[in-house]
């Protein structure tokens, strides 16, 4: 049942990969995220070189996001104009991110930056989500009324040039903040192999104050574009995309995503957010731990010259 991956140059048990793809796909469908932040650490744990894991699973994110966008577009919940602006930023960020990652890898510091990014971003977002959703759950238990929503947007959103109308999102703001958000997501996509949904969704909700219904669909749309560009760049510049690995993963992934999306309706939104926050936080801590734990061998082989 083992299969040899031509680019990763290791042999792995393929049914395990299909199941892994399905489980991550289920989580991604359930929470409306790409699931990349879960996949990359598990692949590395299975012995796939981190650079190949990060690059190959980006195409898994493309697949699950595509099927997500099609579903949301059918419900009219994708703001293609907003998504397009963010994707333009995402493209710029991905190009910069792939070059940055290449340089860090040669410097032998890629592991450090990946671990730090996971610790900082996942840790922070996980804590925020957990805090926000637990407060919400507690309030509901006590039967308190929901707090008055703060509908004010930060003033700087209006002071910037290049204003555009985004009717579906209910916004008339400068194109720069969404573009900048896209750039940021693009860099993360290249370094962490993630779509960046876990950063984009809260930012779109709480900073841009987009209409909530359009947030997930739009972020998925921008994720497709960004991760597609990342995949092509990783293949072109670093030759680290393993088509066999990504195909096996996405076979399980797309099925899992559809099943997950079906289950999503059975839970309350804040319960889902609490669960997701916990997963995000745990993954962040797990990845960050390696910075503090004494390594089993203080010498490590660094990639670069031969490949």
């Amino acid at each position, binding site marked *: 049942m083992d299969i040899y991956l031509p680019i990763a140059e290791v042999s792995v048990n393929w049914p395990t990969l299909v199941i892994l793809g399905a489980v991550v796909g289920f989580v991604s469908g359930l929470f409306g995220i790409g699931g990349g932040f879960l996949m990359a650490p598990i692949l590395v744990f299975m012995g796939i070189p981190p650079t190949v894991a990060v690059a190959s699973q980006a195409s898994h994110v493309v697949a699950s996001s595509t099927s997500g966008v099609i579903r949301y577009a059918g419900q009219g919940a994708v703001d293609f104009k907003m998504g397009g602006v963010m994707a333009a930023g995402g493209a710029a960020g991905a190009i910069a991110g792939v070059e940055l990652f290449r340089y860090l890898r040669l410097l032998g510091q890629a592991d450090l930056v990946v671990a730090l990014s996971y610790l900082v971003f996942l840790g922070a977002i996980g804590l925020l989500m957990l805090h926000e959703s637990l407060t919400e759950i507690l309030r509901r238990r006590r039967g308190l009324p929901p707090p008055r929503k703060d509908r004010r947007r930060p003033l700087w959103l209006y002071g910037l040039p290049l204003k555009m109308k985004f009717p579906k999102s209910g916004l008339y703001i400068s194109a720069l903040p969404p573009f900048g958000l896209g750039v940021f997501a693009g860099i993360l996509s290249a370094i962490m192999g993630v779509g960046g949904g876990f950063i984009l969704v809260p930012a779109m909700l709480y900073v841009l104050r987009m209409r909530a219904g359009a947030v997930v669909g739009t972020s998925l749309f921008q994720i497709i574009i960004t991760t597609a560009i990342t*995949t092509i760049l990783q293949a072109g510049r670093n030759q680290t995309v393993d088509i066999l690995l990504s195909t096996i993963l996405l076979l399980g992934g*797309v099925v899992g995503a559809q099943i997950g999306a079906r289950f999503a309706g059975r839970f309350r939104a804040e319960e889902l957010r609490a669960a997701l926050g916990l997963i995000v936080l745990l993954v962040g801590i797990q990845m960050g731990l*390696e910075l503090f734990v004494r390594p089993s061998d*203080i010498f490590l082989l660094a990639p670069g010259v031969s490949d």
Partner: protein
Amino acid sequence: MQALPPPPPAIEAPPIEAAAVAAPAPDRSEATTGELRVAAALTDAQVHVDSGFTGASIVLYGAVFNPTPDPVDVVVVVRGPDAPVRLVKKTRNMGVWLNSRPVLFEGAPGFYMTASTRPLSDIADFGQLRRLGVGVDHLRIDAPEEAGTVTRYGVRDVVVSRLGDDYLDWRRAVIRLKEAAALYDTDPDGVEFVDRGLFRAEVKLPTVAPTGKYYAEVWLFQGGEPRSVSNLTLTVEKVGIERDIYEFAHRRPWLYGLLCVVLAALTGYGASRIFSRRD
């Protein structure tokens, strides 16, 4: 850990002196039958890496012609293609483990194994093994005499000096890491005599073994001296779809990347079509 003596000078598996192998014998027809020598062959001279590849095990078998009453020892050395090795060392800075700047060795075998009838140190003395480059401790790992830095791909690497204090630490680390990946191996009972004069040894290639040309040397030792050597080659190559994918990914990387994305998008699209029809 025991301190290793200074590293070997660059030796490329030198042919041993002609006198040690055989007398200058122009006519080798009948005279050779009375001569001490070794002959060997591999069950597979080519290893094909395909989708089912989980490493390979090749049997090396051979015969010893020993007209003398003294016992002999056989040592099998297999080397994979040389490649540069880059290493980083983790150091603790304010409670956080950080990587040092990469250190570069200009070349180390991608695969190295020895199999012998007895531990190498019992077969021949230190100087002899070092001169022949037999054994992991005597392996040639290229490093210049002067420390310095080189810039590769825009990154400044440190090159360790062969004479520097920490050279041995780095050298041991290379060997330890390669041993952990099953790329370097020392088997003191790896050569097994199945009959008088007939022996076999197993060459185990892990999945991560590099592709390329491998060289096997079969040494015959008697009384601590190399008496004869037989040289063999072995090729490890990707075949079939694995090679096609690998070559496609390296020759036309942009097209390959585009194909990956299109495939992913189509799968996502296909899945959502299939599932929406079931509703």
